[in-house]
């Protein structure tokens, strides 16, 4: 097919790239079932922000301004103890470093856009949207087409609105629940669900164990410096483990019969 059958939507908005309508719809649909997980995650983050000690108004500001669930959850215990802001920011950056890798991997699809369009696209380039987009277009020979932008924005729109609506619902819910219920544990559980899939291979697991032990051992250090130190050590060990032992899975997968 030389000519695309679906019309390209021309938006006058300078913030958005040209998009193909069908691809946009495909993006909306592709985000459908991950949307349920995003909603659950958003509710948990919303509840956790309020249970962690933020007022409802501040939690609302945080969700709309920061828009990065795992970083938000990770810095809550730091903010709650009034940790120095540079420590808060460094911790969030460490959790967000995966986005730099996403950014490097998908930049070629967005390189032809204006800087405003790139900025907005990158802001919306979260975990799920990136995974869906790369699964569909990762092997594409042409980079940066209205079809690709349409699919990306279809997913991004669902992701953004489902996430924010769920977060707001969680914030309001969190304000109602008594603190004795221990709902802040939900934040820890949510972080564990992100952590486990990241640590299924030997190098990452080695890094996680070293980081965990050191983070506990250095918990008394001033300014929460233990966090940064233990992450640096953990990453170094993971890199070393990969070089020495190879990138092996923790358990050998059973061969399909």
């Amino acid at each position, binding site marked *: 097919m030389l000519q695309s059958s679906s019309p390209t939507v021309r938006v006058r908005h300078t913030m958005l790239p040209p998009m193909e309508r069908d691809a946009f719809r495909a993006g909306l649909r592709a985000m459908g079932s991950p949307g349920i997980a995003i909603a*659950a995650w958003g509710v948990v983050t919303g509840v956790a922000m309020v249970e962690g000690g933020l007022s409802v108004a*501040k939690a609302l500001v945080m969700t709309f301004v920061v828009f990065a669930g795992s970083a938000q959850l990770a810095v809550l215990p730091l903010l709650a103890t009034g940790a120095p802001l540079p420590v808060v920011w460094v911790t969030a950056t460490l959790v967000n470093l*995966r986005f730099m890798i996403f950014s490097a991997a998908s930049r070629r699809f967005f390189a032809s856009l204006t800087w405003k369009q790139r900025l907005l696209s990158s802001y919306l380039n979260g975990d799920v949207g990136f995974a869906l987009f790369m699964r569909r277009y990762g092997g594409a020979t042409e980079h940066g087409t209205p079809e690709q932008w349409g699919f990306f924005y279809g997913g991004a729109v669902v992701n953004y609105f489902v996430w924010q609506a769920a977060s707001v619902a969680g914030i309001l819910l969190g304000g109602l629940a008594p603190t004795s219920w221990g709902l802040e544990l939900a934040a*820890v559980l949510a972080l564990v*669900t992100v952590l486990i899939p990241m640590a299924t291979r030997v190098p990452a697991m080695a890094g996680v164990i070293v*980081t*965990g032990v050191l983070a*506990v051992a250095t918990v008394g250090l001033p300014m929460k410096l233990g966090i940064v130190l233990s992450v640096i050590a953990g990453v170094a060990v993971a890199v070393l483990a*990969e070089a020495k032992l190879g990138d092996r899975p923790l358990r050998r997968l059973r061969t399909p019969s």
Partner: protein
Amino acid sequence: MNTFNSWPYALIAFAGLALTTIGTRGSFFMLPASVRLPPRVEKALRFAPACALTAIVAPDVLTRDGHLHITWHNNELWAVLFAAAVFAKTRSMLIMMAAGMTAFTLLRLYT
């Protein structure tokens, strides 16, 4: 009154956090194409998020008031371990969270 709930502290914190979101997601979108991630750096960066999450979760669950707290009375710890086992088995975030919160609530009420 904790500093957390002073508006200036919170707003400056959030503004900085928003910059980390934009700074990481936007990094290679905004940099010139000639700037590339060296493969070695990329390899190391892959491990940072898992380690950062561990550095938050481990002290939160394993310590109390700055001291190691691995006892039968640490309800959080047992609930998290149980939930992690459930997640490893089911790979479902919803089942995992339900299991963890239920375990925590039962421990809190009956031990």
